[in-house]
């Protein structure tokens, strides 16, 4: 095939439903394309990805994923082809939009792989249903009904239960599941009334059916294979992304397995998919009858899971198929001897458990249903289901090591039943607790029958869980011994088992040992023989960060991957321990040895010993990895890089304060309170506002800015009680400019690629604020002071590698907020912006090298001649009830980067990339400003008025604005009665919301306004600083797209003497 240029579209920022799996898929795609000699043009707005590294693609565009933006890139690059199916739903939708807008045709761009018509067919429920009926594949029967009689006729034919879905209502009001004629009549009446077009969709209910998925590949020559099938423990009703998923299926007979396999092939052939495809089935538990639920004609979260579960690289093979290759000519990369036309067979079991962000969002509705709510997932591999399950649970990093023994032991039977019947994130543990009570009462069979009745969970899983619960009860009575050994085999930690034992490593080889494998991909078993082939080169263990969650996202995976690459470069053998199936770090191509296990002390120690490693690196795996330092040191494991004492000093407030004192560095004044009364006294002494937080939590949990005594009192009401060994910390809150640095220190020299400045003033979590590099308002002397202080702290903490420090500049003085001796969220961004490989520098420092012997320079790297702006992205629409106002606790799930020659241009691209629709002239801006901010808001709102926007406000704010000379329209407060402000939002009478009611805690009007805006998909800014930045972006235009490589080139030219 001649060399061509191929455009690959990424999936943009991490949001709920679209996480790191598309970085993994995209990286594989880019690699496969380049291996075939093609030129790769990549566009993705997410800077924390490996795929946007200039080493991965020939031309990297960190530009917004919108039609106009990508059109400009296409016109500039003139690619020969576009690969649409590896960037998730975002990439797929954008490709279809580009196609429909005629952009591809105009520019002569060929669409590779699965045709557009297939993509559209799979998205269109009606067309899809007809296609399935045409090829004789069953879909859930449904009918569109406009009269009650029609509904009753449908029921007479299909029986109950039925699902009633009114068309065109907000949030599905008026619908539901009905079990008899009476309920159907009633629901139809209300549903037809609620529907704007007086129409209801009636569908047979698949609730309680088994949910099964098949991952299928098809090439252009019509060859098809199944890579993997999966069975959800949660029956149909819970989104598969929120379900506990097991691979391969466990309760399907061969006939059922083959029936669904054959159906999968029929479907993928009929749809003409070329590449990967995911098919979801519902299988009746009593009749072996099935329905097709949906088809995703692209790589997906499930395909990433299937790739990691089997070792078969779906994205890579899909890319080769898109290039026209066939499965029988593509080599199988795992065995090296067989072909890609091969259905993997497993000799282990895989379990995936979602990680939900409910710990961050106390107000969130935790019920699981058709809307996915999890941010990430942990996968466990074990020789048995039990081992895989327990590893997945431990890998969630929720400090949960067992199924029972949690707070659920205090729940009433009714509470347990409620969660088992109507699932939330605690269902698995509620089931376990119900089983435990069944065992205690010698009524196991009844307990199981009850759980089946409530949840329709298959009996098979319940008996497996019962055995585990029994094991936990025995171990609680007497740890260790024979039960302890069995517990290790069943995936428990040595701590739970009360015994330590020899560990054996088993290989993931796609072939159940039928063929010798080349892939260095392992998991841990106990009581079996060991297959570990320790690398010939000196091994170093890189500890990963586990599942993606708010506060610990893809950026740590980015750092781990770079650490592994740097180790290879340095002649070492990287050994990665991680359990996140979505990520690049768990691609066995990245490391010399991949150990797919929870990054816990047992597993890291085992990895270290089995590979005779020189040491373990913790600095790249986020807080999860850092937390292992003490335990690993106790076990005699060598930590390379900053050691335990540095970590300890950074985290122990008193030690850290003492260090700062020695250095003469200020930090906001503060004290520890042993009671709320004492907290009030401290707050009075320091003066409001103050920042309060419990001392035992990290990452901003339970942290709040409190402006007055009333707010402190209500904080005290909702916060957990203050414990004697965990006082409440009360700090003076300095509302200044926040700046942040990432640096590498080798004991003598420091390397600081750049300083970030935050748009929002201190008080908003750094992960949630807009940050800018290079700084726009920091004086050169202050920047020098930052460099000096950073160096001094790094020296004082005895750092050998990375350090991240957050400062606040208040009234011209520099204060330190916190220092983290590890990688941070901003590391990928600063690496992208400056071209300085900070992670590689830190890795080599950890190996004993000095910065002066490396090519990265020392001190502060010269400022880039362009600007990058990181803008956070939230998934509020997916989290019903969540308060959207920003504060010290992080809420964003992802981020985008805007990059331009000018600050305003970068801001503009960033906002567009983050999904903020740029309001056009005459746009309606709904404004609510807190009293203490009203004065400051005037110049900002004046800018919106000058742009020609129409300001709208409730009476209080409106009067203030009018008095200040800003024209403002009036809208009723909620209490004034309809039509009020919420109606205005619901009716899309608003294009932008600026609502900054600070310190709001309860269900106030402002909270309801913010939620209404989120639900109506209207951008809602909750800080005046953000509003000012948006005004800046609106007043300016952005420059043309340029590649990261071009920006780099400009930088080298400019910074060289």
């Amino acid at each position, binding site marked *: 095939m001649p060399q061509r240029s191929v455009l690959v579209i990424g999936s943009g920022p991490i949001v709920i439903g679209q996480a790191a799996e598309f970085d993994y898929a995209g990286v594989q795609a880019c690699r496969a394309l380049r291996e075939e000699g093609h030129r790769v043009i990549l566009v993705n707005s997410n800077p924390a990805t490996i795929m946007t590294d200039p080493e991965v693609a020939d031309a990297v565009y960190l530009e917004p994923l919108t039609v106009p933006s990508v059109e400009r890139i296409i016109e500039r690059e003139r690619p020969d082809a576009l690969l649409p199916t590896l960037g998730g739903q975002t990439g797929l939708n954008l490709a279809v939009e580009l196609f429909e807008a005629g952009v591809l045709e105009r520019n002569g761009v060929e669409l590779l792989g699965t045709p557009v018509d297939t993509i559209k067919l799979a998205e269109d429920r009606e067309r899809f249903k007809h296609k399935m009926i045409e090829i004789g594949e069953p879909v859930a029967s449904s009918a569109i009904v406009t009269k009650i009689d029609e509904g009753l006729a449908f029921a007479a034919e299909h029986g109950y239960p039925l699902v009633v879905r009114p068309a065109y209502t907000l949030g599905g009001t008026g619908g539901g599941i009905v079990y008899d004629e009476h309920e159907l009549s009633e629901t139809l009446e209300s549903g037809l009334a609620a529907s704007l077009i007086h129409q209801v969709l009636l569908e047979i209910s698949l609730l309680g059916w088994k949910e099964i998925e098949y991952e299928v590949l098809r090439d252009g*020559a019509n060859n098809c294979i199944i890579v993997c099938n999966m069975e959800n423990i949660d029956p149909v009703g819970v989104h598969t992304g929120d379900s506990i998923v097991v691979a391969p299926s466990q309760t399907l007979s061969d006939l059922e397995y083959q029936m669904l396999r054959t159906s999968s092939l029929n479907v993928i052939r009929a749809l003409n998919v070329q590449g990967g495809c995911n098919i979801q089935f519902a299988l009746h538990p009593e009749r072996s009858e099935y329905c097709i639920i949906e088809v995703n004609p692209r790589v997906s979260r499930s395909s990433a899971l299937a790739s990691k579960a089997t070792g078969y690289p779906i994205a890579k093979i899909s890319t080769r198929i898109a290039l026209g290759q066939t499965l029988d000519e593509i080599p199988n990369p795992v065995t090296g001897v067989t072909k890609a*036309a091969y259905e993997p067979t497993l*000799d*282990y079991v895989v379990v995936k458990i979602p990680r939900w962000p409910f710990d961050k969002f106390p107000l969130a509705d935790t019920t699981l249903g058709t809307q996915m709510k999890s941010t990430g997932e942990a996968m466990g591999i074990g020789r048995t289901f039990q081992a895989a399950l327990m590893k997945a649970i431990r890998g969630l990093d929720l400090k949960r090591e067992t199924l029972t023994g949690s707070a659920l032991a205090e729940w009433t039977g009714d509470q347990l039943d409620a969660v088992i019947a109507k699932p939330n994130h605690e269902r698995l543990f509620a089931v376990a607790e119900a089983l435990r009570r069944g065992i205690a009462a010698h009524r196991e069979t009844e307990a199981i029958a009850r759980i089946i009745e409530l949840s329709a969970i298959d009996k098979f899983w319940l008996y497996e869980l019962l055995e585990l619960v029994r094991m936990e009860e025995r171990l609680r009575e007497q740890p260790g011994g024979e039960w302890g050994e069995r517990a290790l085999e069943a995936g428990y930690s040595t701590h739970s088992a009360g015994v330590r034992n020899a560990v054996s490593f088993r290989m993931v080889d796609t*072939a*159940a040992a039928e063929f010798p494998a080349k892939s260095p991909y392992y998991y841990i078993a106990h009581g079996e023989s060991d297959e570990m082939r320790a690398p010939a080169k000196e091994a170093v263990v890189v500890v990963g960060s586990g599942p993606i969650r708010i506060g610990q996202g893809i950026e740590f995976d980015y750092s781990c991957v770079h650490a592994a690459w740097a180790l290879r470069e340095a002649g070492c053998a990287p050994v990665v321990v991680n359990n996140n199936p979505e990520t690049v770090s768990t691609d066995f191509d990245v490391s010399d040895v991949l150990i797919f296990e929870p990054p816990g002390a047992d597993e890291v120690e085992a990895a270290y010993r089995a590979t005779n490693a020189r040491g373990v690196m913790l600095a790249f795996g986020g807080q999860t990895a850092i937390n292992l330092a003490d335990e690993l040191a106790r076990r005699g494991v060598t930590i390379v890089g900053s050691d335990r004492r540095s970590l300890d000093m950074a985290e122990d407030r008193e030690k850290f304060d003492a260090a700062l004192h020695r250095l003469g560095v200020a930090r906001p004044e503060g004290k520890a309170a042993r009671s709320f009364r004492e907290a009030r006294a401290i707050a009075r002494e320091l003066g409001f506002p103050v920042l309060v937080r419990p001392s035992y939590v990290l990452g901003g949990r339970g942290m709040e800015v409190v402006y007055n005594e009333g707010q402190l009192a209500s904080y005290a009401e909702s916060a957990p009680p203050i414990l004697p060994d965990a006082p409440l910390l009360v700090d003076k809150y300095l509302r200044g400019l926040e700046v942040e640095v990432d640096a590498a220190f080798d004991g003598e020299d420091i390397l600081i690629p750049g300083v970030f400045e935050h748009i929002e003033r201190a008080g908003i979590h750094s992960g949630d604020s807009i940050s800018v590099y290079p700084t726009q308002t920091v004086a050169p002397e202050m920047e020098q002071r930052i460099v000096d202080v950073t160096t001094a702290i790094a020296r004082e903490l005895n750092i050998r590698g990375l350090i991240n420090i957050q400062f606040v500049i208040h009234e011209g003085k520099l204060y330190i907020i916190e220092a983290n001796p590890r990688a941070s969220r901003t590391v990928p961004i600063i690496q992208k912006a400056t071209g300085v490989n900070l992670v590689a520098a830190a890795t080599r420092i950890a190996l004993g090298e000095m910065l002066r012997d490396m090519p990265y320079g020392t001190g502060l790297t010269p400022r880039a001649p362009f600007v990058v702006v990181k803008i956070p992205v939230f998934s509020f629409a997916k989290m019903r009830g969540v308060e959207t106002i920003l504060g010290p606790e992080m809420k964003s799930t992802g981020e985008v980067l805007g990059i331009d020659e000018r600050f305003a241009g970068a801001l503009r691209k960033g906002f567009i990339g983050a999904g903020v629709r740029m309001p056009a002239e005459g746009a309606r801006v709904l404004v609510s400003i807190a009293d203490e901010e009203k004065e400051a808001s005037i110049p900002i709102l004046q800018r919106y008025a000058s742009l020609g926007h129409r300001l709208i406000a409730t009476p209080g704010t409106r009067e203030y604005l009018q008095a200040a000379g800003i024209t403002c329209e009036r809208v009723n407060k909620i209490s004034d009665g309809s039509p009020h402000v919420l109606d205005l939002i619901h009716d899309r009478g608003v294009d932008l919301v600026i609502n900054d009611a600070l310190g709001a805690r309860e269900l106030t009007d402002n909270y309801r306004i913010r939620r209404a805006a989120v639900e109506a998909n209207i951008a809602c800014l909750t800080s005046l600083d953000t509003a000012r930045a948006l005004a800046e972006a609106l007043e300016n235009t952005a420059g043309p797209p340029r590649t990261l490589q071009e920006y780099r080139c400009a930088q080298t030219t400019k910074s060289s003497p």
Partner: protein
Amino acid sequence: MKPAALFLADGTRFDGHALRYEGIALGEAVFYTGMTGYEEALTDPSYAGQILTFTYPMIGNYGISETVAQYPRACVAGAVMKRIAQHPSHHQSRKALGEWLDEQRIPTLVDADTRSITIALREHGTIWAALAAGEEAIARAEAQLTDFVRTATTKELVPSVATTVEHVEGREGGPRVVLLDCGVKKAIIRELTALGANVTVLPYNASKEQIMEHDPAAVFISPGPGDPTDLPQTIETLRSMLGQRPMYGVCLGHQLLALACGAQTFKLPYGHRGGNQPVKDLRHGEVIVTAHNHGYAVDALSLPSALEQTMVNLNDGTNEGFRHRDLPVAAVQFHPEASPGPFDARRLFAEWLQDLV
């Protein structure tokens, strides 16, 4: 729990637990890589005389249905698995796998390190072995294995599972076919009769006269256990019928037809047993995924010029099918009837039968 152990003839031993039944199984140790289909596999006559290790670690999850069995009884000599389900769950399950294995008096090793056994068999090749369930059996297993290895033969395998009496399956009026039973699976008869064939099942050693007595429109040669060269009489019969009737073979039947046409067979290092073998159909250019269960293969290089190779295994390049260039004779090495395994090649039976109408 009672101990059980697997002894390989090279002296390797793997330990685990027994079910209730105690005893010794002697035979060839082989492994099956399918993740489902244990009931079909355990009752597949081609496994006669073999100690079968399941590479998938969780066996018995959906119980024993007694509707998918391929033979009236278990055919394996012994069974080895990592974990056996005590509480199966399936609407068709009639009993737990362990209970059924005990009833069938099959010595079984559970809690075994099946992956290490598989690696041993892959590296050593198929090997004679003893599976001893219970302490008393373990005590005498090694001595018995030594004796067994001295005299072991595959010659008695086909007679042990093939029918001895003629019987007719399927409805009257359909195309009349004779099926030579070398240890046939029910699924083959199911597929043929479902297509309307009237199937007369004859013992593997039926003579040409006995076959022709039925005036068949075609002769099918079934799968079965062991080495095809153990059946010289059958090979001779098939050779004498070349050109007289259309003949189709599956698995052992494929090997016997190849030998009858003058090709050679050889023993594979460790066989193919599972449901994921990719086969390229050379005539249509497409890849199908197929069910396998064989320890011997037809040597593609030995195919006489009259035979055309039609199918090839993508994993190891071995022959998977041929047809005669001039005569209605064709055969495949894999199992189009699946059971267990994928149904990608199911249409072959219809294609063969279509030629008869």
